[in-house]
């Protein structure tokens, strides 16, 4: 049930014409099995095309194979089967030190016996660049990550956020064509993480380097990425831009993992293209989006985002139920509704000063959402 969209070159529209975007990294049926009893499949036949200048995110819960895939691109792990090319060149034949990619490690892995500047210059020295060029690039990099004043500090004497920036500068200094980032923000506190998300996105756009970013944080993935591959249990479940992933999840796992979702039992009446007509448990019929046309009629699950629904008087709703908890969040309020068919449903409504309809716990209410907003998931 893998929903991997494998596409070749894609066209990006720019003013007045189209531009072909080349594939930076091409992953084909990459497989990694760790021997054991039973053998552990860390990655099951993954196929992805990562484009030039793209911010591509591998998103999934821990143990989903995202880090394994990243480490294979870096060269620290060897696949059991499959192919891996970068701009047409076979990466699998090359040891890590010959691959034109650099990595930002989760632990940063800064060299503790070297200063900030020495850490950043390490890759350039290994490439045998002339001294003057090294000095210039290191200065540029330190300015880029705002660490110029810390040049001669030992890496143990700087804060976590600063270490993170040094790790980034060190990986960017050799100007790789692809930068691999393994959960680089997970060790930072909330505020710093937000700042660094913007910073990373800015760096990616300024440098034009392809970023392959690994995270388990769905919000981080949605805000930063051009495209996301959602992974679970070693398989790629869906590839798409953040809007596609959020609004049109291909399956229950994706809908559940990304954001909050209500799952409603429903019956599929008919499909026409990507539009489906479904019958809700209340008997009412409504249009919904289908991931693929020609889906099997019968029992399906309808996914509706809490913020896409509203509550009102019982008579006006698509579904009726009893209001349970009402949780106030400042900007919005969460209404927990127990529907008549027994399923729970959460409505997230923005708080407005002009709000008139007020409901309280125990009231009979109706839940409403617009036609075409729900997503049909196969059961």
């Amino acid at each position, binding site marked *: 049930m893998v929903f991997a969209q494998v596409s070749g070159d894609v066209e990006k529209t720019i003013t007045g014409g189209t531009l072909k975007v080349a594939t930076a990294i091409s992953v084909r049926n990459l497989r990694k099995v760790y021997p054991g009893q039973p053998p552990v499949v860390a990655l099951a036949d993954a196929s992805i095309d990562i484009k030039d200048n793209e911010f591509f995110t591998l998103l999934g819960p821990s143990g989903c194979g995202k880090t394994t895939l990243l480490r294979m691109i870096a060269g620290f792990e060897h696949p059991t089967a499959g192919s891996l090319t970068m701009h047409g060149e076979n990466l699998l034949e090359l040891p890590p*030190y010959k691959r034109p990619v650099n990595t930002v490690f989760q632990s940063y*892995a800064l060299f503790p016996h070297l200063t900030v500047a020495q850490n950043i210059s390490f890759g350039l020295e290994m490439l045998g660049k002339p001294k003057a060029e090294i000095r210039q690039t290191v200065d540029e990099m330190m300015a880029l990550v705002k660490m110029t004043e810390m040049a001669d500090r030992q890496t143990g004497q700087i804060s976590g956020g600063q270490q993170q920036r040094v790790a980034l500068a060190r*990986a960017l200094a050799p100007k790789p064509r692809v930068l691999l980032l393994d959960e680089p923000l997970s060790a930072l506190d909330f505020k710093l993480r937000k700042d660094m998300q913007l910073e990373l996105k800015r760096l990616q756009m300024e440098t034009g380097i392809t970023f392959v970013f690994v995270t388990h944080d769905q919000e981080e993935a949605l805000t930063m990425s051009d495209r996301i591959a959602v992974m679970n249990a070693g398989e790629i479940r869906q590839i798409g831009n953040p809007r596609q992933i959020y609004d049109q999840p291909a399956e229950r796992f994706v809908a559940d993992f990304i954001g909050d979702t209500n799952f409603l039992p429903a019956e599929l009446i008919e499909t026409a293209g990507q539009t489906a007509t479904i019958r809700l448990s209340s008997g009412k019929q409504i249009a919904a989006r289908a991931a693929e046309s020609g889906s099997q009629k019968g029992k399906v699950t309808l996914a509706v985002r809490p913020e896409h629904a509203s509550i009102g008087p019982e008579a006006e709703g698509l579904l009726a139920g009893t209001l349970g908890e009402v949780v106030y969040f400042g900007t919005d309020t969460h209404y927990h509704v127990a529907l008549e068919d027994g399923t729970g449903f959460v409505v997230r409504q923005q708080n407005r000063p002009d709000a008139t309809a007020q409901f309280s716990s125990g009231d009979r209410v109706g839940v409403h959402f617009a036609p075409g907003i729900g997503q049909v998931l196969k059961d």
Partner: protein
Amino acid sequence: MSKAFNVSRQNGFTTIAITCFVLLYLPIILLVVYSFNSGTSVAIWEGFSWRWYQSAWQNDQVQEATVRSLIIALWASAISTTCAVLAALATTRTRKFKGQAAVFAMINQPLMVPEIVTAVALLIFFAMIKVATGYTGLAYLIVAHSAFCIPFAYLPIRARLQGMDLSLEQAAADLYATPFKVFRRITLPQLWPGILAGAMLAFVISLDDVVITEFVKSAGQDTLPTYMLGQLRRVVTPEVNAISTVLFGISVTFVIAFTVLGKIKN
């Protein structure tokens, strides 16, 4: 609140502990005290003097044995540490292979085989080489010492390597460092406290070896410990105490340095 088992609360714990420490340290304290005896006895105190230190210092045989001991210990610690670094790298920085446990046991073999067995084996083996080549120099002792010092140098180096963050070496490889450069620029600078600790331990172990040295040495190749053993068979004077005290001081210094080096953080 239930009381956890605490060995220090058991009857007789203090008595046993004190007895052990007295047995361990009283003889050493007496040895040190009597090294300053002005008389010729190692058991009857006649007053304080430095005479036995002077006597040892001016004794040609002691001088010769000391120089020989130091030469052997320096060579043995250098050779065994080099071997230990290579062995430690091979057992911590390669993929797991079949028979890794056997290799580990072989490296540490000198710790497990009775020294006397090694000594006799080396005596016979070197005798064959001596007959074949006619060479009777110090090399036999150096080789023998190097061999049994390897595990002592290996253990601290291996511990240090195991404690090191592997992602640092991966990061270096990721930044275009060849395997040799990774070792030279990243692994070695962080490994040196382990190497130094291993070398010092090997040096001390070599310095006070008696059994293997006694069997392997040719005539006129006494080291300090075997010279002292020889002296004890004839006449015992506090000169032996004085030499022992100096050796004891050197060992204590090394052990302290070893502990300090082990504590240097990665």
